[in-house]
């Protein structure tokens, strides 16, 4: 005599398995891994309800257990990505400050280099030549300013004209 099996919970099991496999495929792809938690929870609920029905009616549990295991693993992978996104966002919050510090450092270095630079400008036109030499050393500039205030002429800056 052929044994007749009670299939209570089987439809729930198949639904849980479909959702669980979809969840797993989504969970392992970082782009959409975060949203996999939603079908993951749905699959766990479906499988759990199916298992309780199956336990009451002594029907097969294979599909339900498979769905539940896959859903739990997929949900854990998806849940771990919530932490990953949080970590990245936390690090990204510090990046503007780091970039600002780097820009400030570069700016300071450029200004410092320019302060100590000697500048020489040569202009030649139709055989006439004008050469202006100066330096941008901060102390020299202060001295020049004092000399100018006293009515003197700057000593270090030179203007040479000639043919």
């Amino acid at each position, binding site marked *: 005599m052929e044994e007749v*099996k009670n299939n209570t919970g089987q439809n729930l*099991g198949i639904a849980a*398995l479909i959702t669980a*496999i979809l969840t797993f495929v989504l969970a392992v792809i970082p*782009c959409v891994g975060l949203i996999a938690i939603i079908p993951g929870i749905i699959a766990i609920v479906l499988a759990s309800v199916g298992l309780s029905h199956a336990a009451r009616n002594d029907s097969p549990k294979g599909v339900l257990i498979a769905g539940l295991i896959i859903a739990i693993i997929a949900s854990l*992978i998806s849940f*771990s990505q919530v932490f990953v996104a949080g970590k990245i966002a936390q690090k990204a919050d510090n990046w503007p400050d780091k970039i600002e510090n780097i820009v400030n450092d570069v700016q300071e270095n450029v200004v410092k280099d320019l302060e100590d630079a000697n500048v020489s400008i040569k202009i030649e036109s139709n055989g006439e030549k004008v050469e202006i030499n100066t330096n941008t050393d901060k102390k020299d500039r202060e001295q020049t300013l004092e000399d100018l205030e006293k009515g003197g002429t700057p000593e270090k800056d030179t203007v040479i004209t000639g043919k």
Partner: protein
Amino acid sequence: MKSGIIIKNEPYLILNIVFAGVIMLIMLYSGIFSPDTGDYPVVCIHEKLTGQPCASCGLSHSFSLILRGRINDAYMWNENGLRVFIFFAAQFLFRIFFSWYYIKNQDSQRQLISLDISGSIVIFLIAFMPFIESIFKWL
């Protein structure tokens, strides 16, 4: 004497059918949306939230290009696209072959399931390792 197989009573066959269906849906998605127009409805949530592109960005474009035979372009969109595509394509063929073998050889079903599980885990890890690494490197 064993009676014929009723699919509803065989979790392994149901799992195979469901997985093959999911893979067909993935292929359909890749085939319908064109990489030239870039009208993919799914956007990278990871990039939206963090501002940083993730390891799977460009995977949809990559799959579509592989289906259209443009392997070099696919590699440019996502360097892991080809190996993930091969995983899904192989799994689709495995589901069909293993289901057929399961029905034909009822005496070696347990061995077949063990072989399938171990083999699938290995090729899954090979195909998805860059993604798994990218998920867990931040933890």
